C-alpha cells in the first residue's frame, strides 16, 4: 500500500516529462517559430557585406552622411567604420575592382571625419529625411520583442548610439500593415568643400630603420591642405620590371591617408600620386644596420601634402 502512491507519482512525473519533451520537440524541431520581419542586424555575414556595399553606393550618389550612418546602424555592428574598412580591405584582397571598394573606404573615411566628401558631389538628387514609425505588430499569441525600426530615427550629425535593438520580432501571422510617416526634415545643405584636385607635394622623405617592420616597407601619408589625412588617393609605383597601383585609406587603423608598398632590394622606383600628378623619381629602399652591425633592408616614409 505504501509503494503504490510513489509509483503513481512516478507515472505522473514521467507522463509530464514525456509530454514536455514532445511539446518541445514539436516547437523547436517540427514547427519552430517562423521568423518574419527580421531586421538587417540578423542578416548572414555575406548579406551584411552586400548591404554595406549598397549603403556605400547610395551614399556615393546622395552624399547624405547622416542617412548612411543611420542605415549602417541597422546592422548593429560594434564598429561600423571598422567593418566598412575591413570589408574594403577584404574585397581589395580578393581582387575586386577599386570602383567597387572605393565607396566603402570613402564612406568609412567620411564617417570618421564626420564630414561628407563633396569632391564627387551629385547635387541633383535632393532626398528627404525619412522617419519611420511603425505600428506594433498584431501578433497573435506571441508578444513581439520590442523593436524600433528605422523607426523614429532622428538623423543628427552626431554619431549616436544605434536606436535599433537587434532583436527579432517574430510571429506566426502575416505582416501587420505598417504606417510610415515621413517628415520633410531639411537635408544638410551641400557645404561647398573644395574637391581634392590640388597636387600633393612631397614634404618628407625619411628612412625608417625598424627591424620590426617588413623589409623594404615604403609608407605613405597623404594630407590635404588642412593636414587632414586624405583617403582614396591613388598612388602608382613604377620600376623597371613593372608597376603597381594602390590607394590610401585601406588601413584606417594606421590613418585614412596611409598606404604602403613593399620595395625590393636594389630596385629603383618612381612614385606618382595620381591626384594632382605629383611625381617622385629615384626612390629605393635604404640599408639599415642593426645593433649587432648586420645590414638589413630598411623602409621609407614619404609624406605628401596639398599646398
Amino acid at each position, binding site marked *: 500500500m505504501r509503494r503504490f502512491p510513489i509509483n503513481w507519482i512516478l507515472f505522473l512525473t514521467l507522463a509530464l516529462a514525456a509530454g514536455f519533451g514532445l*511539446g518541445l520537440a514539436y516547437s523547436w524541431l517540427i514547427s519552430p517559430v517562423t521568423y518574419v520581419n527580421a531586421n538587417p542586424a540578423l*542578416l548572414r555575414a555575406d548579406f551584411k557585406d552586400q548591404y554595406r556595399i549598397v549603403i556605400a553606393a*547610395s551614399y556615393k550618389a546622395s552624399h547624405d552622411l547622416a542617412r548612411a550612418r543611420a542605415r549602417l546602424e541597422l546592422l548593429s555592428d560594434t564598429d561600423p567604420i571598422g567593418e566598412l574598412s575591413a570589408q574594403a580591405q577584404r574585397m581589395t584582397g580578393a581582387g575586386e575592382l577599386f570602383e567597387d571598394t572605393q565607396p566603402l573606404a570613402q564612406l568609412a573615411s567620411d564617417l570618421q571625419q564626420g564630414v561628407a566628401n563633396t569632391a564627387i558631389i551629385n547635387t541633383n*538628387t535632393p532626398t528627404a529625411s525619412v522617419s519611420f514609425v511603425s505600428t506594433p505588430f498584431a501578433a497573435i499569441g506571441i508578444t513581439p520583442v520590442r523593436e524600433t525600426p528605422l523607426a523614429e530615427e532622428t538623423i543628427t550629425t552626431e554619431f549616436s548610439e544605434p536606436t535599433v535593438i537587434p532583436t527579432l520580432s517574430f510571429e506566426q501571422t502575416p505582416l501587420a500593415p505598417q504606417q510610415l510617416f515621413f517628415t520633410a526634415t531639411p537635408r544638410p545643405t551641400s557645404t561647398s568643400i573644395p574637391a581634392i584636385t590640388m597636387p600633393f607635394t612631397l614634404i618628407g622623405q625619411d628612412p625608417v630603420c625598424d627591424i620590426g617592420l617588413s623589409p623594404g616597407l615604403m609608407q605613405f601619408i597623404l594630407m590635404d591642405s588642412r593636414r587632414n589625412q586624405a583617403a582614396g588617393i591613388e598612388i602608382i609605383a613604377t620600376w623597371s620590371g613593372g608597376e603597381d597601383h594602390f590607394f590610401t585609406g585601406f588601413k584606417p587603423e594606421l590613418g585614412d591617408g596611409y598606404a604602403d608598398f613593399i620595395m625590393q632590394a636594389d630596385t629603383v622606383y618612381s612614385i606618382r600620386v595620381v591626384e594632382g600628378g605629383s611625381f617622385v623619381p629615384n626612390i629605393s629602399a635604404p640599408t639599415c644596420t642593426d645593433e649587432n652591425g648586420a645590414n638589413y633592408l630598411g623602409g621609407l616614409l614619404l609624406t605628401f601634402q596639398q599646398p
Partner: protein
Amino acid sequence: MTSSKWITILVTALVGIALGLAYGWVIAPVQYTDVPPNILREDYRADYVLMVAEAYQNEQSPEIAARRLAIFGSETPAQIVTLTLDYATNNNFTQNEILLLQGLLTAMQTYQPQGNDTP
C-alpha cells in the same frame, strides 16, 4: 490500473505537451541568426531597394542594380521594385524617392541579363 488512472496520466501528458509548446514557442523560441534577406521587414526591404535606386541613378548600370536586388531570392528585379514602388506610394515616400524607384523599375523592366536569349 483503472481507466481513470490512465486518463489522469493522459491528461498529465497533455499538460506536459502544452508546457513544452509554450516553452518552445514563447519562452525560448528558436533563435535565428544569419537570416536571408527575403525575411526582412517590409520597410527595411523598401529602404534597401531605395538605396539600390539611388545608386542606380548614379551608376546607370542595370546589371549591378539587378545583382543587388537578386539577394531577395526568387522574385524578378522588376517584381521587387514594383512591390517597393507600391509600398512607397502607399507610405508617403517623397516624390523624389518615388521618381528614383520609377527610374529603377523602368531599367529593370527592360533589363536583359547577359547571355539570356529569351525575349
